[in-house]
């Protein structure tokens, strides 16, 4: 301490209080530090996602086969377009936010209010889009079967195109009632039953000789894979999921014990169980940030309307929520890359 005392005079002027060493107000500085910690939280999540993905690199689901929906285009495979649209909505709401901040610098109250309003609308559209994306993800499209060993089997036809369970599963004269809490003893219950039983899928598979099984494993177009007689080498493509021969498909399906439709936190029809968990957790946490951002924006919007910042002669509060809003956009840019592109 003794050594620092000698230089304390000049230090005192900078750090002694009463001025702003970073030339940013206390509130703005704290918003920056909050953003640093939140950025590290999201980095932790995305790094954990990367960990699981590298761990199961050969069996991880392919994003452009999972997210293929677009509003009003039912049955059309449109990978990426919808998330691209969501990205534009968020980038555009960032632009209107920064325009609001800019109008604030000119003390233009009506313009600030107008741009804040547009930002809030953009935020709502984004959260709504996210909900629609979740709905499709949870509902699923084709359905799959899980084996006793925990791996997932999907179905394709003789052209290698995906086939839904409903397209081939047989209807057997069997009946299974869902155990609900009101019917069970000691509050025992089970989750919703799938539309088909394993036996129905197996019977339907037998009746349709053109149907083959596609595994989770990525096909590698090399000599070692070519020697494998269990794989249908004409249908399997490099860096796509492996399609098995009919004989091997039958052998694998005999080992099935669960029908999987859509996604929940335990299993999903897309592949690796962790995939859905990370999807729900990371996009959910981001969606929660967008939602709270919208709420904060609404509060500030009303403050602008009643003239709080006009009285203060400074629209810095708009700048601070702007920082948060841009941060949410920034996180989405990374989520978009690591969930949908890479």
């Amino acid at each position, binding site marked *: 301490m003794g050594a620092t005392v000698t230089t304390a005079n000049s230090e005192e002027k900078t750090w002694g209080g009463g001025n702003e060493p*970073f030339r940013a107000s206390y509130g703005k500085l704290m918003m920056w530090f909050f953003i640093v910690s939140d950025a590290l939280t999201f*980095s932790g999540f995305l790094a954990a996602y990367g*960990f699981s993905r*590298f761990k199961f690199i050969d*069996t991880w689901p392919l994003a452009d086969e999972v997210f293929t929906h677009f509003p009003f285009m039912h049955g059309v495979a449109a990978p990426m377009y919808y998330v691209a649209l969501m990205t534009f909505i968020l980038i555009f709401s960032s632009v209107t936010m920064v325009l609001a901040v800019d109008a604030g610098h000119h003390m233009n109250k009506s313009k600030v209010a107008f741009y804040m309003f547009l930002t809030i609308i953009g935020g709502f559209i984004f959260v709504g889009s996210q909900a629609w994306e979740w709905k499709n993800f949870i509902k699923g499209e084709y359905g799959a079967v899980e084996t006793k*060993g925990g791996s997932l089997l999907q179905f394709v036809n003789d052209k290698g195109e995906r086939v839904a369970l409903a397209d081939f599963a047989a209807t057997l004269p069997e009946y299974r009632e869902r155990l609900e809490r009101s019917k069970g003893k000691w509050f025992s219950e089970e989750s919703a039953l799938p539309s088909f039983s394993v036996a129905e899928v197996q019977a339907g598979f037998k009746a349709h000789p053109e149907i083959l099984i596609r595994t989770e494993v990525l096909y590698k177009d090399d000599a070692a894979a070519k020697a494998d007689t269990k794989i249908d080498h004409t249908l399997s493509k490099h860096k796509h999921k492996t399609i098995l021969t009919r004989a091997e498909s039958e052998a694998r399906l005999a080992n099935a014990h669960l029908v999987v439709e859509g996604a929940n936190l335990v299993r999903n029809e897309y592949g690796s169980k962790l995939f859905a968990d990370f999807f729900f957790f990371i996009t959910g946490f981001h969606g929660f940030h967008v939602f709270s951002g919208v709420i904060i924006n609404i509060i500030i919007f009303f403050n602008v309307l009643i003239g709080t910042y006009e009285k203060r002669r400074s629209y*810095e509060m708009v700048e601070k929520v702007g920082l948060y809003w*841009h941060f949410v956009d920034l996180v989405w840019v990374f989520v978009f890359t690591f969930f949908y*592109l890479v």
Partner: protein
Amino acid sequence: MSHEHVSNLKRIWMVFGILSVVTIVEVILGIVKPDVLHMNNLLSMNLLNWIFIILTIFKAYYIVWAFMHMEGEKTSLRWTVVAPVIFLVLYLLFILLVEADYIYEVFKNATIKWNF
């Protein structure tokens, strides 16, 4: 900075243009997946993924520098915010991804089948 009171509308729209163009390029690459990029690896990741990651960082730079107006802040504030994030993220990624690759190898070479 806020004291200057000059409108930077032009810059805002220019950055919006850059971010849009980069996003469109990413989406096109993601749909087409050119074989030249998708099938060639650099440091155990294909070139397409490297391009996506570089473009993402490029977008992140524009969002932080232009929209969050980092370019108008003092250098000390810039470093205080950006340096810890970059250092810690690189460190975390290094540890986790190397470990993940190790576990992948363990599963792959094990005598016990874990997923069948």
